[in-house]
């Protein structure tokens, strides 16, 4: 398989706090990677570096063969290939669902409004909420909002989608509908990196599990081995905490 993301020894500090310590990660096209770890372990920072939301200070990141640096050109190329879904959805509250979905296609991909509308409708159907097209985000449930956010990301037709704890802000009964959409997306062959503690989803979907702690990747393995027999003590302790509650 083709390598689509290549992260090589990247480091990142916020003041005195070192969030990432020479982290390396390779992801192949179509691969589903799930990253877990305690809070503050650098999971979010890692994926935020991959789409340029945070600038890494050393090491290198390549996305689909493009070197990511802070030049506007490189950033905009990488941005167009990488979609992102946030914990807090971050929908645009002053725009309808349809306008949320078509803003990127119209402004960044230079599509006509009717093309963008068709595209948005296609992805709204895929996340199973076409009937909400003309509502405002505040009129939707959390689960619906997150599905709109996924559809908004899909409308940019990215090669990779990053999920930053997509279900952490949701009520329990809404987590399932979002995970279903994500599973469907995974089955369609999308390359995905998900930061999540949803172990059921991880077992079903992930090709590779990554455990991070204190800014480092401690363990990286296929799911069966990862959940049953991890190499590291720290990973085992973490799994004991999240699995036995």
């Amino acid at each position, binding site marked *: 398989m083709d390598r689509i993301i290549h992260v090589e020894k990247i480091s990142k500090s916020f003041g005195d706090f070192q969030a990432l310590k020479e982290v390396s990660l390779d992801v192949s096209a179509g691969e589903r990677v799930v990253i877990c770890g305690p809070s503050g372990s650098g999971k979010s920072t890692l994926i935020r570096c991959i*789409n340029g939301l945070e600038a890494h200070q050393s090491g290198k990141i390549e996305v689909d063969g493009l070197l990511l640096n802070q030049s506007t050109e490189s950033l905009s190329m990488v941005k167009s290939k990488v979609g992102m879904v*946030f914990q807090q959805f*971050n*929908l*645009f509250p*002053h725009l309808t669902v349809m306008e949320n979905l078509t803003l990127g296609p119209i402004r960044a991909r230079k599509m006509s409004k009717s093309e963008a509308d068709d595209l948005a409708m296609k992805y709204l159907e895929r996340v199973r909420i076409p009937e909400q097209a003309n509502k405002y985000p*505040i009129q939707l449930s959390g689960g619906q909002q997150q599905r709109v956010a996924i559809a908004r990301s899909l409308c940019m037709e990215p090669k990779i989608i990053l999920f930053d704890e997509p279900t952490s802000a949701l009520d329990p009964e809404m987590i399932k509908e979002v995970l279903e959409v994500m599973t469907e997306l995974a089955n369609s062959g999308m390359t995905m990196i998900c930061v999540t503690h949803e172990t059921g989803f991880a077992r079903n979907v992930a090709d590779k599990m990554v455990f991070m702690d204190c800014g480092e990747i401690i363990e990286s393995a296929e799911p069966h081995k990862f959940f049953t027999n991890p190499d590291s003590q720290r990973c085992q302790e973490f799994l004991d905490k999240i699995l036995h509650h």
Partner: protein
Amino acid sequence: MTMQKLLIGISFAILLSGCSGNWGWYVVNPTTEGGIINLKFLLSGLYYTILTSVVAIVISIVIGLIIALPALSKNRFLRGINRFYVEIVRAVPILVLILWVYYGLPQMAGITIDVFWAGVIALALSDSAFEAEIFRAGIQSVDRGQYEASHSISLNYTDTMRFVILPQAIRRVLPALGNQLVYMLKMSSLVSVIGMQELTRKANELVVTEYRPLEVYTVLVLEYLVLILIVSGGVRWLENRMATDK
């Protein structure tokens, strides 16, 4: 309702004191020909008061927005430009700025500038520093996630501001902008000193010919009061409408 009570109260006060004999209401008595001429003369100032204020507020909003944007930059130099402008402009009294723009600027720049534009420019400059602060607060109140979402759908800076950040920020600062308009209507009385034919100037001119400052200035007070109560009402209405939209 409070506005009606207020006006009724003021009218009574004026009527009662008018009986004492110290007042000369004939100068603005609408039942006599002379009174009507004087009233029309006073009211004719309304045109420049409103025009000056509206043009000045539009210009000051545009300048305010332009000055607010660098305040949000990560670049210290750009932020410094914003602070410099805001601090300097806020430190100059409006009346002083009006005099300087009308008498000083033409001499310095070798240009001629008419009364209207001198007044408008001085008022707009003076107000722009406050507008800039209002916009800065409004833009900063928009959640960081909105920028990140815009980034993730590949919007550039201009589109992010135009379609995502500013529409939300402006909605939040509308009541504050309305207050600035009220403030501007009041401050526009100061341009009377350079001879702009607005409400206050008209009143001053009438006082000079009629020697009846008490009556004429009372009418002037009422003119501003009614004008500003109407505008305030409009601002409140807009505020309520925006609130129910959500």
